[in-house]
């Protein structure tokens, strides 16, 4: 198998997962936002109160509202704004999942250097996801 066929197979595997993850992320974001602004779901901060806080630096915002940082938002998925945040987080995970998908493909094709690069990228993404860089 030549380099061109390798590339085609790897790119198709990445594109398939990227397509699915992106469509899912956007559909979920749309539904979650409608639930949020329609008031169909309870929110942590009432929408009418938000203008008092959204002009504050993030540290002051968290202090005055008591809103969660780090992974604290995961415990508040029953509040509409954090369900919306989960949809944004899903978009932030799609790339790592696509990389994870192509690692076995690259190894099977004997592309060890590319596979190592993909694993290193996954490590960086997972470190960011874990909050390692944010101190959270």
């Amino acid at each position, binding site marked *: 198998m030549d380099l*061109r066929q390798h*590339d085609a197979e790897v*790119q*198709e595997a*990445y*594109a398939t997962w*990227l*397509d699915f993850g*992106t469509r899912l*992320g*956007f559909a979920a*974001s*749309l539904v*979650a*936002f409608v639930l*949020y*602004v329609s008031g169909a779901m309870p929110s942590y901060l009432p*929408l*009418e109160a*938000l*203008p*008092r806080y*959204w*002009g*504050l*630096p*993030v540290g002051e*915002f*968290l202090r005055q509202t008591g*809103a*969660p*940082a*780090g*992974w604290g*938002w995961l415990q508040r998925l029953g509040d*509409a*704004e954090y369900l*919306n*945040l989960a949809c*944004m*987080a899903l*978009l*932030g*995970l*799609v*790339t*790592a999942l696509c990389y994870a998908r192509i690692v076995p493909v690259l190894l099977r094709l004997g592309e060890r*250097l*590319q596979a190592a*690069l993909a694993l*290193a*990228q996954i490590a*960086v*993404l997972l*470190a*960011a996801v874990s*909050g390692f*860089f*944010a101190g*959270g």
Partner: protein
Amino acid sequence: MEAAAAHWWIWPLALFAVSFAIGIVAVLGGIGGGVLFVPIVGGFFPFHLDFVRGAGLVFALAGTLAAGPTLLRNRMASLRLVMPLALAGSVASVAGAVVGLSMSAETLQTALGFTVIAIGLLIAASKDAYGGAVESDALGAALRMKGDYVDPAAGARIDWRTHRTLAGFGAFAAIGFLGGLFGLGAGFANVPALNLLMAAPLKVAVGSSGLIISIINSSAAWVYIHRGALLAILAVPAVLGVMLGSRIGARLLAVTPAATVRRVVVVVMLLAGGRALLRGLGLWT
């Protein structure tokens, strides 16, 4: 304050409209759109810049993720080219995001204003290079940074390879740092780095730039999520607007002259950069 509380819904609606318009212009200009979104929303909307930058990253992330499958399948984006450069850029972007959240809003607004104006002038002055017809350097050959694509306009398969790989790594580390610092997609700088510096053909540079933005911003976005700097009322309308606008922009791309697009992008960047600069200097709050 009572009036502002009663009319909170105006801002997400306006954000959706602005993001929709930027989505159209961004596709036409071959940029991620964060470079327009952050100064415009930071300058004219009531949200703090911390939240605007977080939304700017997600904004550019959403647009580029959505375009990725098409770009990969028609080989306008090359994973072989993207993977090493995106790795350098994503490490640097996380560092930029951490530094950005530690700086004062005034300092950031001033630096953002200078940066955006400089980039606008750079785009106005730059020309496109043909690219592709070079010999690989040793590092580029080891990483097999080459590929091909079918150009419908030329009706031919174009083979390409890149050079100046080490300089390319340095450029993408610097671009990633600025992207994380300001919450920009940084596509404005990716394309010249890939095309002018590394000699990738322009179409491959534009396509691969989008994929690089999606990877780099995936890392930086998590810094903002963990710091609590992603506000749903700001980020979600921006994401929905840019998605819709990008689809329209992709259709308009075929019929809009490139020179017109370039002029539109430069004018908007100069206005938005000037506003950020004046705000940062305390001359127009």
